[in-house]
């Protein structure tokens, strides 16, 4: 039982990870391609930008993380900060 638990799991084998990532990249590409094929309903002018949602999602999240990293420099204290 313990042996079974200690052998590398499915998500620890590099080949599995790279396969999952490849599938994931393909889906991302397909979603962008679909943007040019499918006629999206436009509710707002900004949505006319090709792949608006994809770009917005990616850029938004990168900015989110970068700002959060800067916040850490200002706001992060040790774990027992309030316990003292």
């Amino acid at each position, binding site marked *: 039982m313990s042996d079974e638990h200690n052998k590398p799991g499915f998500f620890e084998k590099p080949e599995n990870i790279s396969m999952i990532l490849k599938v994931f990249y393909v889906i991302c590409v397909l979603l962008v391609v679909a943007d040019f094929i499918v006629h*999206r309903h436009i509710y707002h002018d900004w949505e006319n930008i090709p792949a608006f*949602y*994809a770009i917005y999602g990616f850029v938004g*999240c990168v900015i989110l993380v970068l700002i959060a990293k800067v916040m*850490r420099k200002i706001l992060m204290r040790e774990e027992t900060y309030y*316990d003292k």
Partner: protein
Amino acid sequence: MISSLLELLPQLPPFLPLLIGSLAAIFLRGHLRSVIMLLAPVWGALQLAAIDPGVYWTFQLLGLELEPVRVDKLSLMFGYLFHLAAFIAVVYALHLKDTMQHVAGLSYAASAVGAVFAGDLITLFIFWELLALTSVFLIWARRTDRAYGAGMRYIVMKVLSGVLLLTGAVIFITQTGSVRFEEIGLEHDGILKLGSWLIFIAFGIKCAFPFFHNWLTDAYPESTPTGAIFLASFTTKVAVYSLARGFPGTELLVWIGVTMACFPIFYAVIENDLRRVLAYSMINQVGFMVVGVGIGTSLALNGAVAHAFNDVIFKGLLMMSMGAVLHMTGRINGSELGGLYKSMPKTTILCIVGAASISAFPLFSGFVSKSMIMSAAVAEGYDYVWLALLFAAAGVFHHAGIKIPYFAFFAHDSGIRTTEPPKNMLAAMTIAATLCIIIGTFPAQTVYALLPWEVDYQPYDITHVLTQLQLLFFSALAFAWLNLRNMYPPELPSTNLDTDWFYRKLTPGFVVPIYYSVMQMMNKLERLANIGIRRLIRMSYDDDKNQPKGYFAKLWPIETMVLWVAFLLAGILILYYV
């Protein structure tokens, strides 16, 4: 059969079945307690199914016409939701033997039900306070110093909210002569304006408005694994209900809501305690609802209450999965976890269902309600609000959808070997996960059927599905890219400063020294006074002769006194004749 059973039972106020369940939990033990606790929410929900819209059990108190139970579509929706949430939370807590938590949990649920059916401000206030008083025991039940402190801060904020509500209500009742809890709004003149603002802020504190939000992120992660499920279900949703009832279409709420939706996601990215990540993400989700209430069209209001409904279930599911991790491993920090999918595969899958729901993947519950609010924002011309909500929606996926499951169950192997949580915990999570998928897949038959306002909305069209998938997949792409380039902030044992710093560090930082210096001064003054008095005594008493030094304090022989009395009497005699 059910209806005939219901006819046998008397029609009770909606909050009573849960309250009876909680009282029964005090006295009963073992399986009997479990059965009663499970039956209480079922009985309550069946009662709701049988009750007709209207006002019940009205009575006069001090000349005020109280309406303790008002049933309409809005209160019914929240009523069903709270019974469902109570049922799931009870199942999750069945393995416990802690009477305090069982009693507190069910009476807390009963208070929430009481609050949403309250037809007048006085009844609302009573249940408002009961919500606070019952729920705080779910935090203290953790029985740690941190939980005790967090519980104290929690109850102080809650009592503040209650006091503001009562003051506002009293102003309203004396000015308008009506106790009814209806649309209040902020557009008033004179003293009524003050009253409406007080009520607004009271609701806002419970709703975790920015700067009033730290009671939530402070206390919920310190509660017990099972207590957090109750906590995540009721308080903020009662607040959303109250805003939807009292302040629909108040534009200020749009801006407050959009702030709530955006700022917590930054904190969630850098927070290490995974239940605290969920607490921040809760503020973010409530932000969506507050925006919906602020926009105030029937689509937006429906979106707000539908999202409240779904949020209770998927946030409960995520909280339950993290509670299961905490229960089994004793750890909840992202920096200490990882690789648990091997020993807790079922919990992992259930957590991912919750993550997909909160991220609003198509076919999961978040999608059908969040898109209503977004559509309403675009339709009403709130362009930048819509853009910010879109950012918040991507951010939710980032921190709640990916970060929670990733750092708990995947990432690096932490070496922790454990097992699946108790069966009742798994069962509760399974119920919630199933509901997430059913609601997400068949919204028209489930959550939409309960919506209070008339609206025709179809979430599933090619545009919505495609754009949402693009948004989510490219958010995930950002996570993968940042992670592969080692740019993603690692999980670190840490505390992040937030508004609570003002009352946990700054205020104690100068109030405590002031207190001590005042105390020191008082002591000094007392010492000086003591010395002075002692010196005075020493000066006036001759220790050697053992007698006072002062002239009048001397001991006089008795004949001297008689002589003086004689003089005195003679004096009076003379005065009498003069």
